[in-house]
């Protein structure tokens, strides 16, 4: 079996190398990829969309339809995680730690809960004693990470960045909260329901902006049609359309990151975890 695998890998590799024999030289300015469409994009994109960052213009406008579905792929991933991993069965027993004495209590009745606060804390298999330094450093860092994430989303038109990157940074700030405190803290602050709605809402913002263009007389995602309701220069409106969809992407990516993390870290139970 290994031998067959090795032979197949060799054949595939050979095939790929054979195909490269007619490739244009590395960085060749006369190659088809840099002459056929690139010139048009480089020359016209700024006039047509008023977005200085060409990558954003191609991503969110010329090929905005692809990007919309990439966001939908992210949404699918979050949804798949939720569908496959989420465990709705009730937990049979709970453990609590009496903080002043360190005694651990087991409560077998599923309905009975102890008041959690300064006296008792939740206890599960991954419990670790809280660390003052880590907690406080992360507490200071998280707001700055989040502001930076918003900057990356908002500034995608002008410099590298955009919804995907910003969303990931924002999501990772929430995951940092779960790592530095514990998962329960995150789940209490950001409710599962809110995250679930945000996943779909982010994509809905994107699709909604696109669909809004249709009753206004444009094609799907043709932001220039939005001038009917916002009286603005038809080129400039494209930049704002892109900003709108980038915000949608940011929301969706952020929510999906956190949903995936919570579901995998807690094996779908949400109340247990790190």
């Amino acid at each position, binding site marked *: 079996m290994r031998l067959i695998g090795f032979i197949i890998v060799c054949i595939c590799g050979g095939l790929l190398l054979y195909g490269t024999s007619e490739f244009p030289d590395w960085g060749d300015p006369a190659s088809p990829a840099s002459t056929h469409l690139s010139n048009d994009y480089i020359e016209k994109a700024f006039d047509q969309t008023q977005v200085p960052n060409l990558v954003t213009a191609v991503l969110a406008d010329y090929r905005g339809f692809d990007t919309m579905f990439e966001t939908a792929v992210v949404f699918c991933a979050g949804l798949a995680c939720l569908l*496959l991993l989420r465990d709705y069965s009730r937990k049979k027993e709970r453990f609590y730690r009496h903080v002043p004495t360190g005694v651990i209590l087991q409560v077998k009745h599923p309905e009975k809960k102890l008041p959690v606060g300064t006296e008792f804390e939740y206890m599960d298999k991954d419990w670790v004693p809280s660390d003052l330094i880590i907690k406080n450093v992360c507490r200071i860092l998280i707001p700055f990470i989040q502001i930076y994430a918003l900057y990356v989303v908002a500034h995608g038109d002008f410099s590298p960045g955009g919804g995907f990157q910003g969303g990931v940074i924002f999501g990772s700030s929430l995951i940092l909260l779960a790592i530095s405190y514990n998962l329960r803290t995150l789940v209490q602050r950001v409710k599962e329901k809110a995250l679930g709605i945000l996943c779909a809402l982010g994509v809905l913002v994107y699709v909604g902006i696109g669909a809004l263009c249709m009753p206004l007389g444009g094609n799907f995602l043709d932001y220039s049609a939005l001038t009917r309701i916002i009286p603005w220069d038809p080129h400039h409106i494209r930049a704002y359309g892109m900003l709108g969809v980038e915000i949608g992407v940011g929301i969706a990516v952020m929510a999906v990151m956190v949903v995936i993390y919570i579901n995998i870290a807690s094996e779908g139970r949400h109340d247990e975890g790190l």
Partner: protein
Amino acid sequence: MNTYPALLIVAPLLAALFTGIFVWIEERLCYPIAVLGMLISSFSAYKILMAVLSAGVIHYRHAGWAPPMGIEYRIDTLNAMVLLLITLIALINLVASYKTILVETPDRSGSFITIYLLFVVGLLGVTATGDLFNLYVLLEITSLTSYAQIGLGDKDRGPLASLNYVFIGVIGASFYLLGVGYLYIKTGSLNMMDVATIISTMHDSNTVLVAFILCMIGVWIKMALFPLHVWLPNAYSYAPTAVARVVAPLMTKVMVYVMVRLMITVFGFDYIFSTLDLSAAVVWLATIAILAGGLMALAQKDLKKMLAYIIVSEIGYMVGGAWLGNTTGMTGTILHILNDAVMTFALFLAVGNMIYVCGHVGFDNLKGLFGRMPWTMGGFVLAAFSIIGVPPTCGFFSKWYLVLGAFEAGAYHFAAALIISSLICAILFFRIFEIGFFPEPSDGDDHAHAHHEPAVMVEAPVSMLVPLGLVSLSLIIVGLYSGTIVNTIILPMLQ
């Protein structure tokens, strides 16, 4: 008219997102929203087909940019037909499977409907698009959602079957993407028509050859052509009923459509059959696929598994027909995309009803099924006749074109395989009929009166029987109108 190509895909997408939100607020609203989305989508598909038939190819520019710069939907009679097929099957299945969704995924039916709609969006996007990369993105959505849905099936074996499918499916998609990458390096374009124009001048290029091979292997993995089929039987038989009913008729058929589209529109017959001359090898491969699929089906003891192997065999029909290199064979393949989707859908609808009533469909559990579920078995018999190829069901006509095409091309082995496969299917289904008709006396059963007791009818609910009835009747209607379909839809596009 202009908005229908967008509405076709945006309606189910919006419905999916709204159900994704309403899952958390008011779960009862999910199902009506989904049905509404699919209704709008089906209506759009119908309008598109009518428009294409009267006015020719439709172009729709997403975001308003002209084709090589932006993404374009290019819908001719071939995709219009497949689009209507997808929307109708997805809609009928949503109605027919309402009860099974509630039974099989009770605590997550809302999210299940969301992912189901996204799966349909993926299939529609793959079919409607005129852009090679857009096709890949939608393929990714289709695959991801089908992995998730299959993983929800059988508690023990569903996730494992899904995981196998993930590994092989991702490899298939990567092959396709690599092929598109090679094409892009050579042409600088992603639009199908544009790429076709550019590569028509570089037929002797190694890069285009490798791109072609990579794309074809990718698509073959995704459609489960014989040596690459190993993911299919488990994935389809351990999936939840509502999923198996839509994945089995549509997923592989849409991939056959993609192959046909790449062959006709992007690479062109001249390149494939004159410059490369790979036809004979692929037709042999298809011949082996047909026979291997049939033989493996014979060895099965479970109805769902048996049907899954019949699909493997049917894929051989379509690949072989497309690669015969003549119009008759290609006509047979395209007609078979339509027919096989309807036949498989009817079979899986019937099997879904049996599972809903009997629990599982191992052969031992089918005894006396004609007495207990006469209506379901009626639909099953019609669909089985169509798979075997009994006129006037539709399966006969596409097989007829395939056999004619094989003779025209001199590929007698392929024609022989088609006929042998019909015989194997006849054996397979008559074995099921026999089990279903005659309840075997159980061991030590010497009570004579046991044979005189009338069978108690325990049919599936009406909401599941009516769709099955409609689809089985459509088998005959599609069969009777085969000539019209070939003359108005398929032949104009091939010329």
